[in-house]
């Protein structure tokens, strides 16, 4: 019933108020007839929808025509439409060339638009696949003093919010990568360590067993876990009695208490979830290594819960000033968080493809205008025979509608192909891309597009044609090409096309510049012949000493491989996940307030790492095997740290102290012994943070990226490295084996993706605009063959004739170029966040793009113009 009332909104208000109630009642009556039979109910709903759509279109048509003062014989109006359709089809089929050109143009425009919209729809508009996805939030800590934001929260905070913020269901999690053994080859499995209630936050229930509880999330709590549905299916053979079985993770046995529902893999493809069992004696408030997700409970609004959360934050600030001063907590909708990085880019793409569609419409409008001038006689005849003007407009619009329906149908077909091409082309970094498909919403969009496009390109030519006074139309000579106003419209359409093409080309040019400047970027480390993998030693089997010896031994054996020129390991390596930072103090300076201490990235590394990664040594020395715990504690800083903390002095020899430790209880005061170059760590475009490299023998990190510089000519060292590892400890698994080249290429992938799409769009735009230019000039020349012939006969030189014809195309193109430059000065701002190393108004790019466009304009106009000058006068004069 309510669904039908929704459909009623399709109708003009007058009709709705007259008959809406009765129609809804009739629909309800009909539903009662089929109540209980699912298939029949569905069929009725579909039929009624189709009926409402068709009738609403008819009704709006009626209203529109009444607005223009037509009286239709209602009884025959449908017949009239059918007649229009038949007539339109015949008339289009009579001119297959024109029809094919128009349909192809529209299909390209609509296809590209629908494909892009499918991606936007899948990524940005489709709700998350959980119950009431709008209520899912991600928590974010905001420092009100500095404005800095972070997703890191601490374990006690999550417990506090669970107890003190009514209306909020919240769970904390930390990504984990335990090594699974005892089931074939050792393997690192993605997972998460939790507080409790994660499934509940997502509104889900376990498929088997139960979720983790708060009682299990205590230090020394039971070793229990929930496994993912796929893990259960593929690794446990869908065992119905899986609850109570144990699996071995990083050397410890864990008892399975639950299986997550199918499809659930939050966060980041996790396949198992364990209690965090956070030990507060280690680190209490301020240890923000977890992230938190929440659900606004039914009956509460986001604002209400946010108010309570702000109050709770104030309470925490007061109770724990050291870690919570000026810290407040905000909510972000989960969908927004997931797509934040790509939102701008996708809307820019949508804007770009919209321009292509506009150009396509302009092209078709142009074709129609040309055709309109040929049809003046036909229209005039019909008008004389008594067809009302509105009827003529309707007839012409029907033809346009037929064109765009055909174009739309072909376009949607192209879009199906286009979406799969885009998905294949897209980098991994675009979330939810698997959701992109032609679904109901996309179809509705496509249908709307077809209607809008019809009005866009069809209405103006139709009105122009019908509005023309009879006498003028009858008297119009076929030679003049449709009068000055039509010629002006055509020129303006051309200008518009050129302007839009210029903007698209500029976008492509700027992205190209971005790609080039990222590529030219000195990343600060070797990008060729470097491989790496990630490995960690489980604390259950390795104490700090054993870990340090393990990495030393691994490095020694890898170094000995014939493929490897240098090997080393480190944590906090370029373009990889995993980093640590801490606050920094200077023992040789005046102490400062703890809140004002600067941050320093901490990168434990082995002696071979610098050479393997290719970090340039700027001053001093790097680590050696002698940098052990019992010797002097040392650090090597990067240039960013040197610039920031020692702007006016030599950092070498100065002491620093880091408030973080890993394998040992406490970190000593360290002496700076060297400076290395900055290495782009977060992304290829973000400068490196101030960082301190520490010899891992003095720090004891048990997770590292093992980095190998290959000998010239060596293809890969990974198989050999696996063998070495198996000899050292067969229970260890490696993850993330990759070549740095691939990692860097992946960094460029989003830009390359956007560039490819905008590039395709702008080439499409350029072709369409060139075709339009060519068409307009060729047409105008052919209409003026006689005039040209006379001029040539009277002694005009061929250069003058060419010039005259060129002006026909070049003047609107120049106008378009100016408009395009003006438009892009405003529009290119939208691109800013996608650009790097090039300004949105980069004059060089603008000049290049203008040059390309001008060349195309000249080429497209010159060919027909030249043909005009070649016509022998005798032939020209014969033509009529």
């Amino acid at each position, binding site marked *: 019933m309510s669904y039908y009332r929704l459909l009623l909104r399709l109708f003009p208000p007058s009709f709705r108020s007259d008959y809406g109630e009765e129609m*809804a009642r009739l629909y309800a009556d009909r539903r009662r007839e089929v109540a209980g039979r699912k298939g029949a109910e569905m069929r009725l709903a579909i039929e009624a929808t189709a009926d409402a759509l068709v009738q609403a279109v008819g009704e709006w048509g009626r209203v529109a025509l009444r607005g223009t003062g037509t009286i239709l014989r209602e009884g025959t109006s449908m017949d009239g439409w059918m007649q229009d359709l038949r007539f339109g089809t015949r008339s289009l089929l009579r001119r297959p060339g024109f029809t094919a050109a128009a349909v192809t143009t529209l299909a390209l425009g609509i296809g590209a638009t629908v494909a892009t919209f499918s991606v936007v729809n899948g990524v940005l508009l489709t709700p998350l696949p959980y119950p009431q996805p709008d209520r899912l939030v991600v928590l974010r800590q905001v420092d009100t003093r500095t404005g800095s934001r972070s997703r890191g929260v601490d374990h006690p905070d999550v417990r506090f919010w669970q107890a003190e913020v009514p209306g909020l269901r919240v769970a904390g999690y930390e990504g984990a990568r335990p090594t699974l053994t005892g089931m074939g080859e050792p393997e690192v499995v993605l997972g998460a360590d939790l507080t409790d209630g994660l499934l509940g936050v997502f509104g889900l229930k376990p498929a088997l067993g139960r979720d983790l509880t708060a009682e299990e999330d205590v230090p020394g709590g039971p070793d229990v876990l929930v496994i993912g549905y796929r893990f259960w299916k593929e690794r446990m053979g869908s065992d119905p009695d899986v609850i109570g079985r144990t699996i071995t993770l990083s050397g410890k046995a864990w008892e399975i208490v639950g299986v997550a529902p199918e499809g659930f893999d939050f966060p980041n493809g996790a396949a198992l979830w364990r209690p965090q069992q956070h030990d507060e004696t280690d680190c209490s408030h301020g240890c923000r290594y977890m992230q938190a997700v929440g659900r606004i409970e039914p009956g509460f609004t986001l604002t209400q819960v946010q108010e309570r959360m702000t109050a709770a934050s104030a309470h925490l600030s007061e109770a724990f000033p050291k870690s919570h001063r000026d810290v407040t907590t905000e909510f972000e909708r989960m969908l927004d968080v997931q797509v934040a990085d790509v939102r701008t880019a996708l809307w820019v793409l949508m804007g770009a493809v919209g321009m292509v569609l506009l150009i396509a419409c302009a092209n078709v409008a142009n074709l129609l205008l040309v055709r309109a001038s040929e049809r003046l006689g036909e229209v005039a005849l019909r008008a004389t025979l008594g067809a009302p003007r509105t009827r003529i407009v309707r007839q012409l619009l029907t033809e346009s509608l037929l064109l765009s329906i055909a174009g739309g149908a072909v376009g949607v077909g192209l879009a199906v192909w286009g979406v799969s091409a885009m998905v294949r082309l897209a980098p991994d970094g675009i979330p939810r891309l698997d959701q992109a498909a032609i679904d109901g919403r996309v179809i509705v969009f496509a249908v709307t597009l077809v209607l809008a496009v019809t009005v866009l390109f069809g209405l103006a030519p139709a009105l122009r044609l019908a509005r023309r006074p009879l006498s003028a139309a009858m008297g119009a000579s076929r030679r003049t090409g449709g009068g000055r106003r039509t010629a002006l419209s055509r020129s303006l359409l051309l200008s518009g096309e050129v302007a839009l093409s210029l903007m698209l080309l500029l976008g492509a040019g700027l992205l190209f510049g971005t790609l080039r400047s990222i590529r030219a970027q000195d990343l600060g480390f070797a990008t060729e012949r470097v491989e790496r993998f990630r490995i960690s030693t489980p604390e259950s089997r390795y104490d700090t000493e054993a870990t340090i010896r393990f990495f030393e031994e691994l490095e020694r054996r890898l170094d000995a491989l014939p493929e490897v020129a240098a090997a080393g390991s480190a944590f906090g390596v370029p373009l990889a996940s995993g980093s640590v930072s801490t606050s920094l103090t200077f023992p040789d300076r005046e102490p400062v307030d703890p809140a004002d201490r600067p941050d320093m990235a901490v990168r434990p590394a082995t002696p071979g790492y610098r050479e393997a990664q290719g970090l340039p040594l700027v001053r001093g020395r790097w680590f050696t095997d002698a940098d052990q715990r019992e010797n002097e504690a040392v650090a090597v800083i990067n240039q960013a740290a040197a610039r920031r903390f020692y702007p006016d002095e030599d950092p070498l020899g100065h002491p620093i102290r880091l408030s973080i430790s890993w394998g040992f209880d406490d970190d000593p005061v360290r002496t700076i012994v060297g400076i290395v170059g900055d290495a782009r760590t977060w992304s290829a475009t973000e400068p490196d943070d101030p960082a301190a490299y520490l010899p891992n023998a003095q720090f004891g990190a048990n997770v590292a990226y093992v980095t190998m510089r290959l000998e010239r000519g060596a293809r890969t060292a990974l198989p050999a490295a696996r063998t070495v590892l198996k000899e050292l400890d067969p229970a260890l698994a490696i993850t993330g084996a990759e070549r740095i080249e691939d990692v860097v290429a992946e960094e460029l992938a989003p830009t390359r993706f956007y560039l490819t799409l905008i590039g395709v769009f702008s080439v499409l735009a350029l072709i369409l605009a060139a075709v339009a230019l060519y068409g307009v000039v060729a047409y105008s020349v052919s209409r003026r063959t006689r005039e040209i012939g006379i001029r040539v006969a009277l002694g005009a030189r061929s250069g003058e004739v060419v010039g005259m014809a060129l002006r026909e195309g070049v003047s609107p193109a120049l106008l378009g170029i100016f408009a395009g430059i003006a438009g892009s000065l405003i529009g290119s701002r939208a691109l800013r966040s996608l650009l790097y190393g090039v300004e949105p108004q980069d004059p060089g790019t603008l000049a290049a793009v203008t040059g390309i466009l001008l060349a195309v304009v000249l080429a497209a106009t010159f060919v027909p113009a030249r043909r005009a000058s070649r016509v022998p006068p005798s032939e020209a004069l014969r033509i009529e």
Partner: protein
Amino acid sequence: MVSQNTSKMEAHLPMHPEAFRILLVLRGRELHGYAIVKELERDPGRPGRVLPANLYRRIRTLSEHGLIEETEGPGDGEGERRRYFRITRLGEAVARAEALRLEGLLAGARDLLG
């Protein structure tokens, strides 16, 4: 006078078959929308079911042309008020004229086809 009436009627011819059927089912009685639907669907030759928007656009057209009109209905006074329709005298005449036209068409067809 007669000729004027004839031309007024002929303006409605030929009728859409569905509109013609609506006139026929409304002859001599007042029906509401759902009852009209049920009557129409008793015709075994009719394809598919009658859907709301289609029906009410026809009713609207027929009312506007004065071929049918709304009535108070039986007014049982209970529950929701439904809207009832009945045929007008012009409607009767148009229906008759349409029937004649169809008869003529049929006769012509029979002659042709033997």
